[in-house]
Each structure stands twice: as structure tokens, then as C-alpha cells.
């Protein structure tokens, strides 16, 4: 083997292996090529061996990063070239799956491998490695799988690319005569492979004879039960169900062949598996993502090949405080109690639509939930089923949620605000058993080929049902009124819900809650806001609104397009409040902005209804105090709450307008830690907060020229020990009974988020003041590391927004970490109106989609006028910050959902271009 990028030449080895395979005549030997990192060869102790098996049409080169990573972690890594593949012998015999499993056993025997073994497989090598694992359990301590499959559902056709590769006339031509199959596979890498790596993958497959193995491998895919390899595949597929070793599955979901469907199948067979989907990765997941590092992290975290006595009990650490936990009460308990109580006829839920009002009493709601639960049960859904709900907030969604929870099914909720692509990615990643949606959602399900069966939330025509592959409608479920109660008592610690994050920073993540955690969320909301039976609330902000029945509170959904909160009008809000005599309003800042904008048209009755509101909660994004003060004028009797939370912990801290004013006064009076950020109040009921300080930035003589220093954290990394000391800036950590259980199929992300037990790391930065208030300073990823030190954006942005002409400010860093230049990008009234006056379209601020960004005229952005620049620099200097540049733009990019969170990463990238000369393109 010649020298190849990423491979230590000493790893390459050959071995003559006697074959016991039925494919070969007795006494046959085959020469194998393999890579071996040689760990332990010098007598040093190793934890075990990773036995890596490549698929088709790659070779052991695929595992080079594992060999390197294993050396550092005390693992011997042996990666074989399967026979007829890579640099191993061309045997001249068609080797089927059964033979290949035996081949691998022969190789291991000839190598004299003993001690703990972790099998590692990719593509069809995954099948071979599983076949080996299933038959050689004595030494097996773990299984790692990457984009592979073990079972073909006979009801579904095999993936189109494979069908094509197998088609008569295409197969030989595509796989052997030409390098088409090889080229197509290598082209799947995202991003594209470096030419030297591509050459390395192609190196052993230069001639048609070299490629015979590729052709035979493709032919050996058992597309149906009549195939000769079907029996061997089935044996393995069923056999692995009894494997009891730790399993890690790492997946590139963009794989056109081994899609999420196959991951789901494997997850069913190996329920103990830890799964990480690398959202951007494709078939060659080893090339697209750092799977080797993840594998090493996992081997350590799962204590693979560590004697039981020494194993750290990381898995059970979280449940350490179980004794103190309050008794579990299911989320739907109050609903059931009220339905059977004296007030069962009073209104539980209402919704306003353009056509009027619809209400259900507690009794009606409970009956409806029971009916739908029975219908779902009748269709075969129950504990552990994942039900993707794509139904707008309102009575139907409420019924579906409580019905699913009642039968132990897991609700999957993603926001339409993610956009079609983002929503599709989210739904796919959750691998739902069934999608229940309105027609628009079902159309998307068809267009994007979402997995799972389909139930329509609305009635469809027979043709429509066929077209959308709909099994049933919500009406059908209701009609399947069961005599017996379908309700099962859900296991408190079973999964109850997967809620997706907003995806404003990268792909949306699925966040898993157990029943116990959902109930804890209900209890926290109830205790923090004083809500319970007798309360009545307007549900203008979905996540909290769905808790209405759980709290025993009457809830109403206003007439609005819930996917765009900005469509809530003052009159619609007032009408909803009047319909149930509501005293509580849940809304987002974007919705409240529109309420204020439309308050001129509010009727007298509407004003009266809003006058009765005693509590208004603005959630989802920060809300500026002046806006809050305007809201106060509209709801004069209301306490205005601005809680802080995230999908992973819906409530972390809470305060109200009075609290914000007191905090501002404390900051002005010089209270330790007060100021520099948005005050979000004190921890809510049951929650505790700590701060993980950021690593400092600053000079480091040793790093330059005089050799590297021992490891030191990157500037701005949140590596400090959790503290509650006032005025210390760091990542905000939270612990509460209602914090998420984990991320869904994002094992590494989950590990990172809980690396400081028992805390959940929020990814936000902030600090506490001496009176226990939390001040949020921005996102961890938006921290600026200048030579003068660490800078968080929010405090300076707020100060800049006090300047007359400035509507919105973003403070970002440009240049290398540790020596960044600080830049203020200001959205000014002048810049915006200048753009409008020129007749050019001022772009939509919300929704930083690629198409809307292209239209923007870049000449709108400019260096700030001298006066504004000087004023901004003065403000910054008072805070000890030197602004390298002050830029004026007509509009800053903000998130779709809240129309408020600035996409600072985008602003930073644009600023870097703008300030480095030449064309910056559009912001």
C-alpha cells in the first residue's frame, strides 16, 4: 500500500488466512489486507479491540480516524479489507453474506485476536459485523453501527439508488465495467472529499477485475425473501435482538440508501442503543462528521470494556435525588378530576375562529380525549408510539395531546415556524409512527416522504384520503368509541413528548420529556404564576397554553394564524378574553407588537375585557421595557411577567415589569452584579441556577514561538466550576424537575449538555447579581473574545439602543478568537428610511431565508456617520470596549418565530466581509 493521507504506513499489514468458508475448497488460504494501529503490541495495556468492517465500495481506509483516535484512548483498532475488496485478495468466488461472516471469523482466528471486542460496521459491513457479533458473544463488549441496515421491510421497495444499481444492464456496467458506483458513493460525502482522500478510496479499485467484489456485493443485497442471502440476513436480524451489550449508532441522515427508516428498524431491535444523528452528514458519515471522536467519547461514557466494579455510574447519576421527588401525578389528572366533579359542565377549552366560537366542557373534553385515545388504541398505537402532531393550537390539538399521553404514546411537536425544510428535517429525525396533521401538513408529508402512517385532523374526501395515504381522520378516531377506557397509567419515567427547538442556531433539536417532567412543568407554571382551577387564560403562546387543562384552568385560543404570532390583533385578543372572562394572557413579544399596532381599532367592549386581565405573560424572546410599558397601558390591571426559558426547560426564571424596574434601580445604585444584560428575574419554583465561568482571553507569550503550553481552554469557552457568585459571567446552568430528559437521537449533544452533573447547560451566557437575579448577556456562541478580554453582546447592545437614532443594535466580533475586533452594527431609522426613499425594497426583517436575503441591496449598509460613530464609541468606551467599526444597516436579520432574536452569527460573518475590503454581499 502506498502512503495515503491520514494513514500511518506502519498500520498497513497483510495476513494469510485459512478459509473455512463454504465458498472455498478446503485448504484454501486468502491473503487479507488490514490496518492495525498496533496498540498494545509493546505490552502496554489496552482496553480492547475495535474490529472495523467497511461496506461497499469502500475499504479499511474509511476507518483511519478510528485508528488514530484509538491509539490515544488505549484501544487497538483493526480495520479489515473484506475479501475481494480493498487490498485483500480477489478470490474469484462469489462471496455471499454467510461466507463473509465466516471470512471475518477466520480472519479474527488467524490474527489470534482475543480479549474484549467492539464491532464497528458501516454499510453492508454493518451487516457482516453484526453477523459476527451475534455469533461471537463471548468476547463482545460493544457494537458500533454507522449508516447500515439489517432488515428490508417486505412491504416496502428497496431504495431507488440500489434498485437502479441492481437493474439488468446497469448492474455490471455501473459496478464493475465502469467506476460509476464507486464514484457515486464517494460523491455522497458532504462536504466533498478532498481530492487526495478521493484518490485513496479509489486506489484499490482501478481495473474491472479489482471491482468484481463491488459488483458481487451489490448482487448480494437480498431485495426479497427468495434471495440466497435472505436467510443469513434474517438470522442476524433476529439474533441481535438478544444482544445485551452497549450499542452506539451514528448516522448521516442525508444517506439516499440507508435512511432513517433503517435506523428506526435497528433502534427497535437494539433498544438499548445510544443514537447520534449528524444532521448534515450523508452516507459516508465517517468522512462528514467526527464519528471517531464520538465513538471514543461513547466508549468512555458507557464504560465499555471496563470491569463492572470500576465503572462510573454515570447513567444512574441523574436519578440520585429520587427520594426527594414529589409523588407523580399524570399531566391529565386534573382534567379527569374536573370532568367527574361538580363543575364538569363548565367550560374547559374554547377556540375562536372566523366562523365563531367552539367550546367544550370538562366532561366533553374528557369524553373526547377518551374517544380519541380509544381510536388510537384501536389503530394499534400505544406506549412508546411516536405521534407527530401537525395541528394548529386549539381544541383538536389539545384533545390529541391529552389522548396520546393517556395511552402512553409520545407526542412529537415541531413548530411550523421552522419553515417547510426545517419542519421536514425535524419530523424525519423523530421517526414518527404516525403523522396526525391538517391537510397542509399531510401534503408536506407526501412531498417530503415523511415516514409513518397518516391521520387527517380534518375530514377529507375519499380521493383526498387516498392521495394523502390517510388511514383515518380525527373524526374516525372519535367515532371508534370504545366501551372500555383505553387509558393506561403511563409509566412516570417513560418518554411523553419530543418538542423541537426553534432551530435559530442550526438544525432544530428534538427535546425529550418524560411524563414526570411534563407534570413538573405543569406544577412549576402553576406555582410560579398562581394558576389552577378557576383560572381562565388566553392561549396566545403555544407551549404554555397547552398546559391549560393540566392546570385545571379554562383556556381559549384566539383567532389568529398561530404559525405567525404577528397576526394576533388587539380585537382578537379581547374577543378571546371576553369569551371566557379570562384574567390571564400568554403571548409572545411579536404578537404583543401587533396587538399594540392594532389597538386603535379596539372596541369599547374589547377595552373592558382587556381591563380585566390581571396577569399577562410575554414569553419566547426578550421584550424591550418601552414595549412592555406600552402593553401596560393596554392592560392596566395586569402584572406583566417576562419569564426566561427555552425548549429544554420552559421556565427557568421569572420577573415582572415591577421587578425589572427594581432591577434597573439596583443596577443604577451599583448593586454587585446588577446590570450588563437583560434581567430575567429569579429562579422559578423548583429551579436552581448556576453560572459556569468563561475561560479568559488575553496574552499568552508561551503560545507563540516558544513551544506549546499545556492544554488551556479556548478563550470564551464555558469551562469554569459552577458558581453563584454575583457578577461572574458564564454559561447559564439550570437544574429543575422540569428540565428535559435528553435530546432525541443526539447522543453527543446530550452528553455535552449534561457534562456538569446535575446541570443542564443552556448555551446562554449571563450572570447573577447579589440579590439572586439572573441577567442574560447573549448566546455562548455570540461571546466576543477580544485582546482586552471577554465581551458579551447584550449589555452593550442595550446601551447602544438608547442612542436616539438606533432601533436595534448587534455587537459582534470579527477576526480570530482571542484577538477579535469589536463591531457595532446598528439598525437606524435614517438608514431604513433612506432605503425606502430610494425606492428599493427594504427587506423583510424576519426570516433569514436564502431567497429573501438575495434581494437586499448591499449598498444600504455603510459606515456610520461620524457623529453616530463617535457617540457609539463613547458608549462603548464607558464599558471599557473599543469599537473598531460602527456600521449602519437598514435592517438586522432576526429569527422567524419571534421577530426579535438577532442572528448575530450571520451579522458577524457579514461584518467580517464588510470590514475586510471588497464586496461584502448582503446582510
Amino acid at each position: 500500500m502506498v502512503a495515503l493521507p491520514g494513514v500511518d504506513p506502519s498500520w498497513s499489514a497483510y495476513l494469510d488466512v485459512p478459509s473455512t468458508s463454504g465458498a472455498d475448497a478446503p485448504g484454501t488460504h486468502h491473503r487479507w489486507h488490514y490496518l492495525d494501529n498496533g496498540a498494545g503490541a509493546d505490552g502496554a495495556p489496552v482496553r480492547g479491540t475495535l474490529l472495523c468492517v467497511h461496506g461497499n465500495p469502500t475499504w479499511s481506509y474509511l476507518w483511519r480516524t478510528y485508528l488514530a483516535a484509538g491509539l490515544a484512548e488505549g484501544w487497538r483498532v483493526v480495520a479489515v479489507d473484506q475479501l475481494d475488496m480493498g487490498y485483500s485478495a480477489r478470490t474469484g468466488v462469489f462471496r455471499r453474506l454467510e461466507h463473509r461472516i465466516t471470512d471475518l471469523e477466520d480472519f479474527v482466528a488467524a490474527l489470534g485476536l482475543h480479549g474484549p471486542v467492539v464491532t464497528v460496521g458501516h454499510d453492508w459491513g454493518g451487516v457482516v459485523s453484526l453477523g459476527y457479533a451475534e455469533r461471537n458473544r463471548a468476547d463482545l463488549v460493544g457494537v458500533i453501527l454507522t449508516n447500515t441496515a439489517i432488515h428490508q421491510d417486505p412491504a416496502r421497495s428497496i431504495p431507488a439508488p440500489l434498485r437502479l444499481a441492481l437493474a439488468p444492464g446497469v448492474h455490471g456496467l455501473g459496478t464493475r465495467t465502469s467506476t460509476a458506483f464507486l464514484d457515486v458513493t464517494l460523491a455522497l460525502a458532504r462536504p466533498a472529499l478532498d481530492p487526495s482522500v478521493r484518490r485513496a478510496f479509489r486506489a484499490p479499485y482501478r481495473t474491472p477485475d479489482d471491482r468484481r467484489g463491488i459488483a458481487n456485493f451489490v448482487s448480494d443485497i437480498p431485495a426479497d425473501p427468495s434471495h440466497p442471502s435472505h436467510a443469513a440476513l434474517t438470522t442476524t436480524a433476529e439474533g441481535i435482538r438478544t444482544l445485551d451489550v452497549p450499542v452506539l449508532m451514528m448516522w448521516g441522515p442525508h444517506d439516499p440508501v440507508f435512511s432513517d427508516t433503517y435506523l428506526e428498524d435497528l433502534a427497535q431491535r437494539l433498544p438499548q442503543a445510544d443514537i447520534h444523528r449528524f444532521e448534515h452528514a450523508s452516507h459516508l458519515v465517517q468522512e462528514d462528521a467526527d464519528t471517531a471522536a464520538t465513538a471514543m467519547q461513547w466508549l468512555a461514557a458507557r464504560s465499555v470494556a471496563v470491569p463492572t466494579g470500576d465503572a462510573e455510574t454515570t447513567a444512574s447519576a441523574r436519578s440520585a435525588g429520587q427520594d426527594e421527588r414529589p409523588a407523580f401525578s399524570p399531566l391529565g389528572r386534573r382534567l379527569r378530576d374536573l370532568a367527574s366533579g361538580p363543575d364538569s359542565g363548565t367550560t374547559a377549552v374554547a377556540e375562536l375562529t372566523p366562523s365563531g366560537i367552539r367550546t367544550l366542557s370538562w366532561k366533553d373534553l374528557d369524553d373526547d380525549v377518551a374517544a380519541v385515545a380509544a381510536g388510537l388504541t384501536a389503530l394499534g398505537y400505544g406506549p412508546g408510539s411516536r405521534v407527530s402532531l401537525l395541528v394548529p393550537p386549539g381544541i383538536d390539538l389539545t384533545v390529541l395531546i391529552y389522548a396520546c399521553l393517556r395511552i402512553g404514546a409520545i407526542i412529537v411537536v415541531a413548530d411550523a415556524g421552522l419553515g417547510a425544510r426545517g419542519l421536514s428535517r425535524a419530523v424525519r429525525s423523530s421517526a414518527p409512527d404516525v403523522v396526525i396533521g391538517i391537510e397542509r401538513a399531510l401534503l408536506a408529508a407526501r412531498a417530503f416522504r415523511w415516514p409513518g402512517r397518516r391521520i387527517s385532523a380534518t375530514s377529507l374526501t375519499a380521493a383526498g384520503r387516498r392521495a394523502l395515504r390517510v388511514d383515518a381522520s380525527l373524526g374516525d378516531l372519535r367515532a371508534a368509541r370504545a366501551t372500555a377506557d383505553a387509558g393506561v397509567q403511563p409509566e412516570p419515567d417513560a418518554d411523553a413528548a419530543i418538542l423541537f427547538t426553534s432551530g435559530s442556531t442550526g438544525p432544530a433539536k428534538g427535546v425529550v420529556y418524560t411524563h414526570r417532567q411534563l407534570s413538573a412543568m405543569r406544577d412549576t407554571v402553576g406555582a410560579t404564576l398562581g394558576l389552577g382551577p378557576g383560572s381562565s387564560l388566553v392561549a396566545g403562546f403555544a407551549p404554555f397554553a397547552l398546559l391549560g387543562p393540566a392546570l385545571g384552568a379554562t383556556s381559549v385560543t384566539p383567532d389568529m394564524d398561530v404559525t405567525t404570532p404577528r397576526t394576533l390583533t388587539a380585537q382578537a385578543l379581547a374577543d378571546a378574553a371576553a369569551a371566557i372572562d379570562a384574567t390571564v394572557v400568554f403571548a409572545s413579544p411579536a404578537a404583543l407588537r401587533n396587538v399594540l399596532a392594532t389597538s386603535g381599532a379596539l372596541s369599547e367592549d374589547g377595552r373592558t375585557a382587556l381591563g380585566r386581565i390581571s396577569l399577562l405573560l410575554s414569553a419566547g424572546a426578550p421584550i424591550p421595557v418601552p414595549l412592555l410599558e406600552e402593553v401596560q397601558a393596554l392592560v392596566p390591571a395586569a402584572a406583566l411577567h417576562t419569564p426566561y426559558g427555552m425548549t429544554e426547560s420552559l421556565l427557568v426564571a421569572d420577573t415582572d415589569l415591577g421587578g425589572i424596574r427594581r432591577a434597573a434601580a439596583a443596577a443604577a445604585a451599583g448593586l454587585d452584579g446588577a446590570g450588563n444584560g437583560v434581567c430575567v428575574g429569579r429562579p422559578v419554583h423548583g429551579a436552581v441556577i448556576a453560572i459556569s465561568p468563561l475561560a479568559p482571553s488575553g496574552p499568552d507569550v508561551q503560545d507563540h514561538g516558544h513551544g506549546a503550553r499545556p492544554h488551556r481552554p479556548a478563550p470564551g469557552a464555558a469551562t469554569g466550576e459552577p458558581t453563584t457568585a454575583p457578577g461572574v459571567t458564564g454559561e447559564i446552568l439550570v437544574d429543575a424537575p422540569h428540565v428535559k430528559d435528553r435530546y432525541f437521537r443526539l447522543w453527543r449533544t446530550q452528553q455535552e449538555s449534561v457534562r456538569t452533573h446535575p446541570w443542564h447547560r443552556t448555551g446562554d451566557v449571563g450572570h447573577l447579581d447579589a440579590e439572586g437575579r439572573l441577567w442574560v448577556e447573549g448566546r455562548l456562541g455570540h461571546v466576543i473574545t477580544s485582546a482586552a478580554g471577554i465581551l458579551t453582546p447584550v449589555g452593550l447592545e442595550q446601551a447602544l439602543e438608547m442612542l436616539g437614532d438606533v432601533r436595534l443594535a448587534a455587537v459582534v466580533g470579527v477576526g480570530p478568537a482571542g484577538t477579535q475586533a469589536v463591531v457595532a452594527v446598528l439598525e437606524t431609522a435614517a438608514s431604513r428610511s433612506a432605503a425606502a426613499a430610494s425606492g428599493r425594497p427594504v427587506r423583510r426583517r424576519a426570516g433569514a431565508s436564502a431567497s429573501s436575503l438575495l434581494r437586499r441591496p448591499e449598498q444600504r449598509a455603510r459606515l456610520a456617520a461620524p457623529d453616530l460613530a463617535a457617540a457609539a464609541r463613547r458608549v462603548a468606551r464607558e464599558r471599557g470596549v473599543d469599537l473598531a467599526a460602527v456600521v449602519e444597516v437598514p435592517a438586522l436579520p432576526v429569527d422567524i418565530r419571534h421577530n426579535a432574536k438577532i442572528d448575530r452569527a450571520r451579522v458577524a460573518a457579514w461584518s467580517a466581509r464588510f470590514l475586510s475590503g471588497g464586496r461584502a454581499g448582503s446582510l
Partner: protein
Amino acid sequence: MTVLVTGASGMLGRAVAQQVLSTGREVRCFQRRPAGIAGTQEVLGSVDDPAAVARAVAGCSSVIHLAAKVSFAGPAAEFHRINVEGTRLLLDAAEQAGVTDVVQVSSPSVAHDGTSLVGAPAGPADPAHARGHYARSKAAAELLALGRSTRGFRVAAVRPHIVWGPGDTQLVERVMERARAGRLPLLDAGTALIDTTYVDNAAAAIVACLVRMDRAAGLSLVVTNGEPRPIAELLAGICRAGGVTPPTRSVPGSLARGAGAVIERFWTALERSGEPPMTRFLAEQLSTAHWFDQRHTRAVLDWRPAVGIDEGFERLARHYST
């Protein structure tokens, strides 16, 4: 304890000589024309004159070498003769005369190929890829100088970036003059971030290098104010200090770079004297980001710029209003 300062008639050389004087050391100045700095000895001559150089270094313990041919245009051989061979001559003479420490004043352009510099480290001097005859000759001179550094004869290179201050004919007065004549366009609206160095800060860093030679020997240290600014703001600041209306007209940088290359070639071909109105190097300087990571320099020299950019502009304005 006499310190030789070469090229003391220039703005930076003068400031260096004065700052060394203020540390209580003897200063000898060496340049072609009288510098007339009170309190210093003076040797007149050129760095390519062995006899003059030998006279200059005699009896000195340290040398700060600023003398150089600085221009955007001119024949390569001329730059080589003064900047490379002159440096070699000086180093030879200094070592022979028992000098122990040499600060070679260099330029950040010795390490860079004309692309944007964003928070950049100093980088090794690269005569092959540096832009223009000046930068290439200074790169060769720096390599030569640092290559001579030993325990007994310590050499460090300090690279101040765009030095400016009152009385600066290289940049400040040229900018004012062009702006006054309406011949100072901004390139790409002047948004590129540029590091500059107020003259007193550059001088202080050079003196600090002499003090910190135990740590600085063998190193190349870029020196700036550590306050990068968009070039339009810098030009505007200079113009305002001189009572001139700042430029507002913008020309695409790509156009200016192309035009600069053409003008430069014709200028040289026609053997015109003086500076061409635009060169490719100048256009690059005016249209791409040039700012540096100052952490290493500050840590090694234990030095901070005392005069901020705004304070520098105020001093400039005071100078030109009187």
C-alpha cells in the same frame, strides 16, 4: 552606553532618538542630512558607506536601525543596495565594534502577500512573496538581521504598521495634500479595517524592545495601536486634523488595483522621478484589511500604546492649527 539611531532625520527616527535620550542614555544619530536633535551626537553619512558606518558604530553598545529607502516606486537594485546591503554593512560593523544589541526596524509588509490580514500574527519574513521592491528588500534585510542574532550579539525585529503623527510627510501630509486637491478617492467606500501606529507609540515599542532584548532577541514583533479602524475613518481623521474636507468619492478596489499596476509600470518605464499617483501596492493597502494580533508583542515587550487614536488625531490637529 551609547545607542546608535540610524535614520534619525525621519519622523519615527527622531521620536526614537528623543525617547532613548529621555531614558538617560547617550544617543548618536547617523543619517545623511543633519537631524539636529538636541543632546545627541551626530554622524553624517550613508549606510552604504563603510567608512561612515564604522565611524557611526564606534563605541556604541546598541543600535536601532531605521535608515532605509522607503518608497512605493523605484528600481529594485536601489532598494537592495540600501536596505539589504546597508543592513549587512551596519551589522558587520556593529558586531566588530562590540555592539551587543540591535533593533532592526522592519515592516509588517515583509510577511504578507497582498491579501487581507485579519487579526494576523507577525509571520515569517518572506522576500519571495512580499509585495513590491521595498517590502521584498526589507524582508531580506530582516531575515539577514535575525539570522545574525546570537547570545552575545542580540538582534530583534520590530515592525511598526503605518506610523503617523505630526510632521509626517510619508502619509499624513500626502493624504492632506491629495484630499485638498480632490485626488483622494476611497477604495470600496473605505470599509477595510486598518491598524495604524501613532508615532510616539511606535518609538516607545522600539525602545521597549531594547530594554526587553532578553526576551525579544530573534523575534519579529508587529507593533500597532491595537485600534483597527475602517480606512475611511482614518483618512477622515487625518483630513479633519488638517482642516481638509474628508473624501467621500469611492472607487472599486479592484479597479484601483488594476489601474495602480498599470500606472506603476508606465511610471517606471518612463523613468519618471518621484512617486506615482497610484501603485498596485498602495491600492492593496487602501482596499484590504490589515490588522494584527498584538497580544504576543505586548506580552514580550511589556509595552502598551500610551496614545490612543483619538488622542493622536487631537495632537495632529493641534500641530496643524498652529
